[in-house]
């Protein structure tokens, strides 16, 4: 075996919090050989990003390496000053950051930002750098390069911005690229193209890649070796095939079983009753938005969306960002007035409701938001959050209200002790449970879930999905599940509508759409899902038990 390019040896990192230090990485050791792709896999808070930042010397101001060594080609760089690190950052080790939206300077052209890394390291004169910039832009597929170089970040899509960041990372042909969740903010089809690009460039230059990701599927598809982190400790590491085929640690097994996958069976088939008993009926839903500064011009976000949902079943609306799926969800719960079309919920036409009638209608249908950090008022306690909807309708005695709130909190699997807490004292999964409790406390028949599990770690996601499934069984709820994640959709829905640029391109029972899609777009979407090579573990029955 060749000498490793990067060797992390017994690394421990702590963050200063107020007057004490909180250790977040506990003695992590791994190595990356030349030309190898190693994936650091873990959930949020596992220390994977902290470890990667330490390699680049980019720990946050309150972070400190307590002990251990980071050897790059045999030299320990753990104690190096920022000035010394500057010489190797970009040239020997480079970074592809997570968020293409905020990682580029909005007031400079992409060409000049790409040239900057070469100017800093003094690679050639102006002319040579300019030629190289155009070469690189062409190489990462941004063409015509002359035009792209003159554009500003806001003129590019998320995928194109990520390409610019990749071009910056590979500009100086570094030996090691650290890719920190390089595609987490992107749609699956874009994600696949970006990962393909990183793969190609890596092979061309023989670069090693340290891939930091929460997505086991991405790691399974792209990495040679896996390092599984949990709570700042390595649970397991080894070649991808071995780890996935025979995971040694219980944690890896749990990650594998919780990861949504197309090959997995549905949680529980809904018992769709009478085919004519419809909970939601959407007919020709069309929504135009005025274009800012465009005068009377409008943008058509949704164009003739139609579907029917039987009571007690789950219907999924699937699409990528900008497809109009969230617009559809908001119209159905009555937050938007559609330009045309009809929406019947429990036989009532939502589009004709106004004022007090619309307010009364709210108890029939509730929305659960994507981001549980933004959908709960930070100043309310859990009790007040769940109680609030009850105050909006016929007065109920305080004791009855308290009993209902307790009952609901219990149903979503949270202990009563949480009632006095504020949202900031809860984890993401716990907050989403509170949001679900708030939505259900009025006893609605229909729940609209707008990417309700997308912001959660896979294990938490699996638990919330199990909870939703259980609630549907006991309360006879109808779900409208809006998502970009086909694997999750396949797992929990009965019927599906696929929308692309505002138009419905596919629709029907999930099995039919996934097995024989009508449109090329749906086929692309299905093929782009990472982790096709991942073995499928039976869903862990324990996922349902307990609270997160």
């Amino acid at each position, binding site marked *: 075996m060749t000498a490793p390019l990067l060797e992390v040896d017994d690394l421990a990192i702590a963050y200063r*919090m*107020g*007057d004490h230090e*909180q250790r977040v990485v506990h003695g992590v050791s791994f190595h990356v050989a030349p030309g190898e792709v190693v994936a650091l896999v873990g*959930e*949020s*808070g*596992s220390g994977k990003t902290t470890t990667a930042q330490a390699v680049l010397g980019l720990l946050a101001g309150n972070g400190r390496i307590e002990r251990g060594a980071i050897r790059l080609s045999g030299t320990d760089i753990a104690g190096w000053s920022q000035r010394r690190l500057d010489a190797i950052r970009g040239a020997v080790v480079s970074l592809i950051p997570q968020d293409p939206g905020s990682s580029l300077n909005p007031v400079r052209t992409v060409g000049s930002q790409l040239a900057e890394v070469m100017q800093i390291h003094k690679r050639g004169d102006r002319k040579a750098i300019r030629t190289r910039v155009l070469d690189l832009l062409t190489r990462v597929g941004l063409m015509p390069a002359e035009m792209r170089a003159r554009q500003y970040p806001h003129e590019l899509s998320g995928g194109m911005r990520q390409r610019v960041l990749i071009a910056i990372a590979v500009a100086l042909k570094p030996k090691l690229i650290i890719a920190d969740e390089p595609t987490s903010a992107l749609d699956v089809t874009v994600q696949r193209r970006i990962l393909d690009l990183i793969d190609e460039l890596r092979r061309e230059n023989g670069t090693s890649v340290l891939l930091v990701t929460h997505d086991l599927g991405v790691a399974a598809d792209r990495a040679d070796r896996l390092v599984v982190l*949990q*709570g700042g400790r390595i649970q397991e590491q080894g070649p991808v095939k071995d780890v996935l085929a025979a995971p040694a640690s*219980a*944690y890896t097994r*749990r990650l594998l079983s919780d990861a949504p996958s197309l090959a997995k069976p549905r949680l529980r088939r809904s018992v769709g009753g009478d085919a004519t008993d419809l909970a939601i009926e959407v007919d020709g839903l069309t929504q135009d938005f005025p274009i800012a500064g465009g005068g009377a011009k409008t943008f058509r976000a949704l164009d003739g969306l139609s579907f029917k949902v039987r009571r007690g079943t789950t219907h999924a609306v699937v699409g990528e960002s900008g497809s109009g799926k969230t617009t559809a969800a908001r119209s159905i*719960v009555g*937050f938007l007035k559609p330009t045309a079309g009809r929406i019947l919920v429990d036989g009532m036409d939502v589009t004709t409701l106004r004022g007090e009638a619309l*307010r*009364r209608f*709210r*108890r029939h249908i*509730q*929305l659960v*938001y994507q*981001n549980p950090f*933004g*959908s*709960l*008022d*930070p*100043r*309310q306690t859990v009790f007040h959050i769940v109680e*609030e*909807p009850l*105050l*909006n*309708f016929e007065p109920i005695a305080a004791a009855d209200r308290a009993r209902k709130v307790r009952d609901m909190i219990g149903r979503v699997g949270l202990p009563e002790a949480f009632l006095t807490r504020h949202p*900031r*004292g*809860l*984890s993401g*999964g*716990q907050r989403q449970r509170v*949001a679900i409790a*708030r*939505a259900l406390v*009025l006893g609605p028949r229909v729940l609209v879930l707008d990417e309700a599990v997308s912001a959660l*770690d896979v294990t*938490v996601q699996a638990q919330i999905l199990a909870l939703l499934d259980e609630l549907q069984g006991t309360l006879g709820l109808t779900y409208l599940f809006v998502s970009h994640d086909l694997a999750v959709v396949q797992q929990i829905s009965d019927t599906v509508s696929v929308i692309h640029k505002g138009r419905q391109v596919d629709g029907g029972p999930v099995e039919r759409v996934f097995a024989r899609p009508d449109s090329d777009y749906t086929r692309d979407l299905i093929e782009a899902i990472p982790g096709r090579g991942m073995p499928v573990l039976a869903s862990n029955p*324990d996922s349902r038990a*307990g*609270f*997160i």
Partner: protein
Amino acid sequence: MTSRETGEDDLALIVEALPARPPWTARLKRLSPSLALSCLVIALVFTWTLLPQLFTGYSGTEGVPGEQLQPPSAEHVLGTDGLGRDLYARIVYGARYSLSGAFVAVAVGLLFGTLLGLIAGSRGGWLEALIMRLVDSLLAVPSLLLSLSIIVLLGFGTINVAIAVGAVSVARFARLARSEVVRVRRSDYVEAAFGSGGTFWAVLRRHVLPNSLTSVIALAALQFGSAILAISTLGFLGYGAPPPTPEWGLLIAEGRNYLSRAWWLTAAPGLVVVLVVLAADRISKSIQRSGA
């Protein structure tokens, strides 16, 4: 709870242990020296307004014959003025006028400004446009000119000066309150509150108001300092309380005539104004930070 859930739970515990909002006793222990000093200054000046006689044996308005224009000494800590009045006593007694004026000014600005901002931010549409353009035109006039015009309309006197200063700050409060309300109104939890059947007023009271007030309160503390400054300015120009009221601005104005012979007559009240304004500023900053 089983062991496999510790990861998530630890995170929640860590989040809870974050220094953002520890219990206030712990916060008191970690109070920074500058903030502690600022609170002390404000508290001291406060007690001056309530119980001035505890702090000085001299009268604030009556001089001692034969002791005119004495420099600071053990007997007269800050010296005496042209009529033999103890300057320290005058500053202590004057706190009542300057501070109560500042309070009235801030109250006027806070009440009317926040109300306007709240209406504009929550209702939107033409009403918002109308209110905000009014506020803009209020901001376009130099503040001193505006307060002078209001005083001319209302007549001279401490309270009228305070109302004039407060009226000028209505625009700033309205702008800030509106932007905060707009920010909160866009949040998911406000939409969720409407989505669960909340009426406009209920949502305003339960979510919008509590979540947008922190910054406004911080501005009020800041404005308290500038109000003292503005009231002193107007007192200095002769629009405030008539002599022999020991209002701070008036003290500075009277001392101006003796600037070459008795520097302490302007320096001491000036320094007190500076200290109080700085203290209010520091407290405002910490309110703002605790809200963020």
